[in-house]
């Protein structure tokens, strides 16, 4: 299809200052098993293109699945119509933008997709059966595999051309136990696609799905009879399955430059970070090092170029606790510069699909490892709680006051892991929470996580993000349990 799209775009000979075409095709399939039964098989074949036009200082786009010459011509006319209709009425004059003219090919971590459907369904049924056993207290149990194969072609009117391909697999397993009015749910890697990575079937083994059914059910049962998480100020050891959410909400979103510039104020929110903070603001303790790394193998949001054609490279956002760079694409960085803030861009202008326009989106956003083993992290805690696997997330409009809950909690007393506690929650304020970071795990505690469900934008978009992190310890955090 790429060759056909190339030919038809060339035939357009667009009469505008600049024109690009972003073609996306995705094939996906979801296998799901619930309560020991296969769920309806769901496949998807999606393809379409977005034409973007800059003309006379205005910007417009039009997205269509009609990929005929006439269809693309109509989309171009509509996009140019919007560019001309909004020229001089926009927040930004696009005549100052020189869009990239990228060239290259990028292939993510994957092999040609092999998809032994029957065997995979057997695996899911087997793990599902192991989760249930013959225990009546297991009231809901499910497992799934979701594969995606995304191919993109980006063409520009000045000869730019980029091909990219990403293949991803997201395994899942969730068990709910109920007894005497009490309910607890435990999962493998979270209930929201936390184990999603780029790659092929090898990810099944890496995720630990084989053999997980019994273990996860056992943990759900432990939670059912565990005491409520204690309340009070104490140390908090966050494992990567919760760190990913902490990073996402209280570093990723606040650093998105379009929020800082006010684009998202009506829906997704703004940020406590202001443009003048970059280069000097103490975001966290000296131990905090955060990178934007679209190149990390297998992480869910790895890519070679963003959807505006900017080359994607690793960049340091926070170094030794000091805020250095925002998460803003080239257009956002230029808007900030016009407002007197010389900020460098990173290649994170991304769209969820062919029918949504690119906006600033975190991609792979990672906390770099430190030097403590897991044993040393635990040993350094006199009184605290280990928390793992996010189940509840909420943070204010400016990404500051947050409250997060986890599936799994374990007490830590005098440097030793103790009993399990249920409904572990904690709350804090982003601007001070990261400064309480007191120990960072080493590479042995480092884990690549992600989620395909990051929501943002007007119109709304759900996009894939990756978050890799070591385990980390925070001091004097406000911890509490459920309603008992």
């Amino acid at each position, binding site marked *: 299809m790429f060759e056909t799209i190339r030919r038809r775009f060339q035939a357009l000979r667009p009469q505008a200052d600049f024109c690009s075409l972003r073609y996306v095709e995705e094939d996906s399939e979801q296998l799901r098993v619930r309560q020991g039964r296969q769920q309806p098989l769901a*496949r998807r074949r999606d393809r379409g293109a977005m034409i973007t036009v800059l003309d006379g200082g205005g*910007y417009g786009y039009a997205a269509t699945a009609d990929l005929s010459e006439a269809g693309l011509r109509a989309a171009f006319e509509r996009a140019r119509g919007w560019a001309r209709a909004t020229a001089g009425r926009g927040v930004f004059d696009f005549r100052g933008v020189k869009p990239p003219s990228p060239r290259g090919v990028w292939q993510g971590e994957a092999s040609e997709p092999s998809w032994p459907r029957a065997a995979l369904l057997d695996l899911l049924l087997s793990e599902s059966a192991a989760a249930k056993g013959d225990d009546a207290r297991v009231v809901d149990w499910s497992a799934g595999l979701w594969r995606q194969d995304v191919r993109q072609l980006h063409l520009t009117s000045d000869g730019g051309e980029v091909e990219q391909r990403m293949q991803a697999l997201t395994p899942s397993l969730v068990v709910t136990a109920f007894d005497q009015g009490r*309910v607890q749910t435990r999962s493998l890697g979270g209930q929201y696609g936390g184990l999603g990575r780029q790659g092929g079937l090898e990810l099944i083994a890496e995720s630990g799905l084989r053999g997980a059914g019994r273990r996860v059910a056992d943990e759900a049962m432990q939670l059912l009879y565990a005491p409520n998480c204690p309340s009070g100020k104490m140390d908090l050891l966050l494992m990567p399955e919760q760190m990913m959410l902490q990073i996402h909400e209280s570093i990723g979103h606040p650093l998105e430059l379009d929020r800082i510039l006010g684009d998202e104020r009506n*829906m997704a929110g703004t940020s406590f970070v202001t443009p003048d903070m970059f280069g000097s603001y103490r975001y966290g303790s000296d131990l905090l090092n955060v990178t934007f790394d679209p190149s990390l193998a297998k992480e869910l949001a790895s890519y070679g170029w963003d959807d505006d054609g900017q080359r994607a490279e690793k960049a340091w956002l926070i170094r030794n606790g000091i805020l250095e760079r925002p998460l803003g694409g080239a257009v956002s960085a230029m808007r900030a510069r016009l407002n007197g803030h010389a900020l460098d861009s990173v290649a994170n202008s991304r769209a969820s699909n062919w029918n949504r326009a690119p906006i600033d989106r975190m991609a792979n956003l990672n906390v770099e490892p430190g030097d403590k083993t897991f044993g040393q992290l635990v040993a350094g805690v006199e009184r605290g709680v280990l928390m793992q696997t996010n189940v*509840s997330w909420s943070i204010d409009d400016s990404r500051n006051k947050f409250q997060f*809950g986890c599936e799994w909690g374990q007490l830590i007393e005098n440097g030793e892991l103790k009993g399990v506690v249920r409904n572990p929650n904690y709350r804090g304020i982003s601007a001070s929470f990261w400064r309480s970071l007191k120990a960072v795990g080493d590479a042995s505690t480092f884990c690549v996580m992600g989620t395909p469900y990051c929501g943002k934008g*007007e119109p709304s978009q759900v996009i894939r993000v990756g978050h890799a992190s070591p385990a980390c310890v925070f001091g004097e955090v406000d911890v509490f349990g459920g309603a008992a």
Partner: protein
Amino acid sequence: MMRAHLKTLAAALDGWLREGEGYTLWLQAERTDFIRFNHGKVRQAGRVEQAYLDLRLIKGARQATQQLSLSGGEDDLALLEGALPELRAALEQVEDDPFLLLNERPQSGERVQPHRLPPAESMVADILEAADGHDLVGILACGDMSFGFANHLGQFNWQQGESWNFDWSLYSHGDKAVKRNMAGTAWDAASLRRGVAEAAEQLALLKLPLKTLAPGAYRAYFTPAALGSLLGMLNWGGVSEKEVRSKRSPLLKLVEGEARLSPLVSLEEAGGEGLSPLFQREGFIRPERVELIARGEHRGSLIGPRSAREFGLEPNAGGDEDAESMRLAAGDLPRDEALKALGTGVYLSNLWYLNFSDRSACRITGMTRFACFWVEEGKIVAPLGVMRFDDSLFSLLGEQLEALTAEREWLADPLSYESRATASKLLPGALVKAMRFSL
């Protein structure tokens, strides 16, 4: 155009079917102009034309579904035909589905609204004129949406119409803003100008010195929009039969009689009054009304066809079992007297980023947002610094619920994940004796 296209595709499928095979088709299409605004100007403008078709192939008790993005042209016939071998191969590899339930009594129907919207460019011009001099941010989504269903039994359902949704905020400073949502099927520029002018007048209140509250319990008044956030959270499994049966529903304690809500609370799904089509993906026609809670007591849940088959019930909802046209009965507190009835406490215009902090206790956390105020002796005295709450709906809509307003407000969902939302709510405001703020 897509109506005829769906009929063509269905007719082609009829010819391609083999002995013992059946199908359903579900089409969701839109042609939408999306225009984002920031600082009272245009941020991003464009059009999206999309049509997604779900082809479900059925053989005996086996089923598999392929979703396809359609071009609207002749290519779609080849696309559809090409999907059949893949679905047939898939059917060989899946088990019988004991919970497959499809409508076998065809009930065709059509609802097509006339074209009433002006060009999107003129709507944008109206907005820019009304926003002149203001820091307006938000999005206009406008255009045609259509839904269609067809199956091998000859059933054909169609709904089509134009609509617009303008979700916007007028900013005063920092995070202080007045938020509004306007939606409809006919454009009214004069109403828009009035709405922006009224919001601009309210900005003066946001410029008063900020009131910072200490964590604790306070009297509170929820506008319909703020109450909508709480009930939106409840819609995460709270009214689903499947979630009740699997003990994951946040309303489980209400269903099992361990908790009660206030007798003031009567909640229903009123599909007949909403924007979503009454027909659904399995071909069933949803009832005009489903009673969910009556005078504080659980009355019923939304039952998708799979749950209906599994539990021996009649289906009354789509497969997701969430409310699409939620209606909460009005109370008797005149809205004009809400501040007076509140006395001293918090006036909540909007809530934000809610989530369950303890699902089984129906305990919800979230934040105040936009124009929330501190009220003393029935008068607004200060805008509120953002506060986090953490409280149970069994409390807020239970023993703490003092009154609901006599007037209700219709709220259209402005979200557009994958496609424009059609969900809506009709809600009163709510006065509660105590609401717990935690941070």
